[in-house]
């Protein structure tokens, strides 16, 4: 039985249809990430799961039981907010114990659970402080602690790292992953940051405009995006995507783009001719000096330290290519493309088109 089931969830705010029929199952102990650009409805979905918003249609089930009629406090969930929402008038200990006190847990148990949680998060020294006396990272921990201390059925995390600076965020991300492996709780995690989604998620749910576009392992989301939106959204720098058409010429299948023609070696003739979109990830392209291949005019080369990126033109289109840190073609020069045929993505009508390999 899944820990959380969402069935046909619809929600509108005024005239805006925010959620257009969401179906999702999250298993016990799973770290499920809801990923999407701002305004895609992911936070709304989380709030509906928590019972803070009411959906127009659809059902939320926790452990197989419908909870639509239950208030947030009866759903046995915990939530970590983007702003942390720590109670400013209570100490850290007060914040941690609030939920337990509301549930009339015996005092001795509260003390034990607080010290256990504080230890887990390394905030034992902060228990007497007020939230205003804490740093951003410490507040984040306390917010996590407030969720953890109750051991609820479901953890709902709404962009919990977005208020931290970049370095801290990377550390806390790792800690969060470690924490999840330790407690094995079911986590629904909302973010717009694909790196968080890819590194944290057991499964990633990509959303756009109130719909789920793809639910998969992070690896699969990356290697087999189901549509052009997911393809563009995941990966940095983003995938090169070209409008064009598939052409059969003699024994060769080619892609004719705007001002260039690319031979698709290794693609069988089973693929029909006609309009299509071709996707190439920057790291799936190699460059060489073989002038028989497609030329790229280099415009900018940028260093990232561990690697370099070439920004250039093929035909009338732009292209981004990742190369090793030692390769540094000069702007204005020409390089020649070498493409790994197993790594090309083809889309038709916006959806992934299977490639039959020879």
């Amino acid at each position, binding site marked *: 039985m899944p820990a959380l089931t969402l069935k046909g969830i619809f929600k509108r705010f005024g005239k805006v249809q925010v959620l257009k029929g969401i179906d999702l199952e999250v298993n016990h102990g799973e770290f499920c990430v809801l990923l999407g650009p701002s305004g895609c409805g992911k936070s709304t979905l989380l709030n509906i799961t928590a019972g*803070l918003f009411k959906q127009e249609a659809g059902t939320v089930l926790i452990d197989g039981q419908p909870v639509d009629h239950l*208030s*947030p*406090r009866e759903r046995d969930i915990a939530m970590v*907010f983007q702003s942390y*929402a720590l*109670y*400013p*008038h209570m100490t850290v200990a007060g914040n941690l114990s609030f939920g337990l006190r509301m549930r009339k847990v015996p005092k001795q148990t509260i003390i034990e659970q607080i010290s256990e949680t504080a230890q887990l998060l390394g905030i034992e020294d902060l228990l007497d402080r007020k939230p205003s006396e804490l740093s951003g990272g410490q507040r984040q921990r306390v917010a996590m602690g*407030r969720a953890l201390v109750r051991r609820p059925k479901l953890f709902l995390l709404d962009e919990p790292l977005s208020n931290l600076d970049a370095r801290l965020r990377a550390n806390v991300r790792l800690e969060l992953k470690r924490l999840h492996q330790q407690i094995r709780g079911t986590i629904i995690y909302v973010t717009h940051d694909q790196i968080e989604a890819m590194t944290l998620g057991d499964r990633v749910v990509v959303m756009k405009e109130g719909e789920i576009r793809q639910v998969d392992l992070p690896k699969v989301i990356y290697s087999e995006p189901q549509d052009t939106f997911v393809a563009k959204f995941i990966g940095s720098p983003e995938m090169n995507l070209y409008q064009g058409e598939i052409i059969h010429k003699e024994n060769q299948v080619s892609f004719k783009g705007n001002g260039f023609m690319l031979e698709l070696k290794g693609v069988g003739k089973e693929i029909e001719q006609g309009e299509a979109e071709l996707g190439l990830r920057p790291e799936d392209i190699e460059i060489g000096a073989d002038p028989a291949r497609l030329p790229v005019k280099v415009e900018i080369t940028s260093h990232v330290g561990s690697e370099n990126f070439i920004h250039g033109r093929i035909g009338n289109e732009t292209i981004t290519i990742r190369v090793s840190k030692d390769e540094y073609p000069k702007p204005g020069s020409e390089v020649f493309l070498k493409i790994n045929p197993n790594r090309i993505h083809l889309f038709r009508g916006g959806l992934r088109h299977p490639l039959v390999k020879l």
Partner: protein
Amino acid sequence: MTRERIENGIILGLRITGMIFFFIVVAFPFYWMIVSSFKPLEEMLLNPGNLGLSINKINFKAYYEVLFEHDFSRYIFNSLYVSIATVLLSVSLATIGGYAVTRLHFRGQKVMSLSILLIYMFPAIVLVIPLYVLFSKMGLRDSFHVLILVYLAQTLPVALYMLRSYFQTLPVELEHAGMIDGCSRLGVILRIVVPLSAPALATVALYTFMIAWNEFLFAFMFLDSPEKFTLSRGVVQLADSVHLSKQLVMAASVMVSIPIIILFFVFERHLVRGLTAGALKG
């Protein structure tokens, strides 16, 4: 002389003029009131122009007489009762109402929120006569409860308005967190909203207390039996009485004004914080 020095000179001049004006208009009558209240009657009659007060001539006879012979001890109690009841009711109703128009969504919420201050379109003097007739016919006139009801109607709009503005600055996530942590809506109000709004609540309480304590018009119209008089009503009673002895009226006036002044200075710091806290989210 530079331009800046001329400007500064003008500003200083204006400031001094302002201070003198304030002193004459406000501080001097106040001073006169206090000084007169401590003088024996003969002194006032013999030397009416004497502004000073010699220490060895200070006497509290006027206060004693006002308190115990003219029943002001009872009036103080009455005023306290009416004012505190008004404060308690006004603050609790404004908390619930202000919260409702801020956070709950119901039909007419916007209209209600906007029309809170509408009652101020009607001056008290317009209302007092119809209310007088109404309460007389209902036989409710000569009672504290009617007075409290009227004061409530007078203070509640501003109280609601102030609290609503303050509640709007509280992050809604805090309330969501409270609900998830196990609070009911009322629990959220009592355990999260109220403690966080303490400065605003203190401001509203002080404001309500001042209005109720100082109010004269309705007390004058509605209260008939002397044992139910509030302080301000009592002072007028005293001033109207046949044997007009000034220092008694002065002593009574001091008793009306001092508590408010003390309260104001005690709460002043919180008051300012409450008024600005809305602009700067804490």
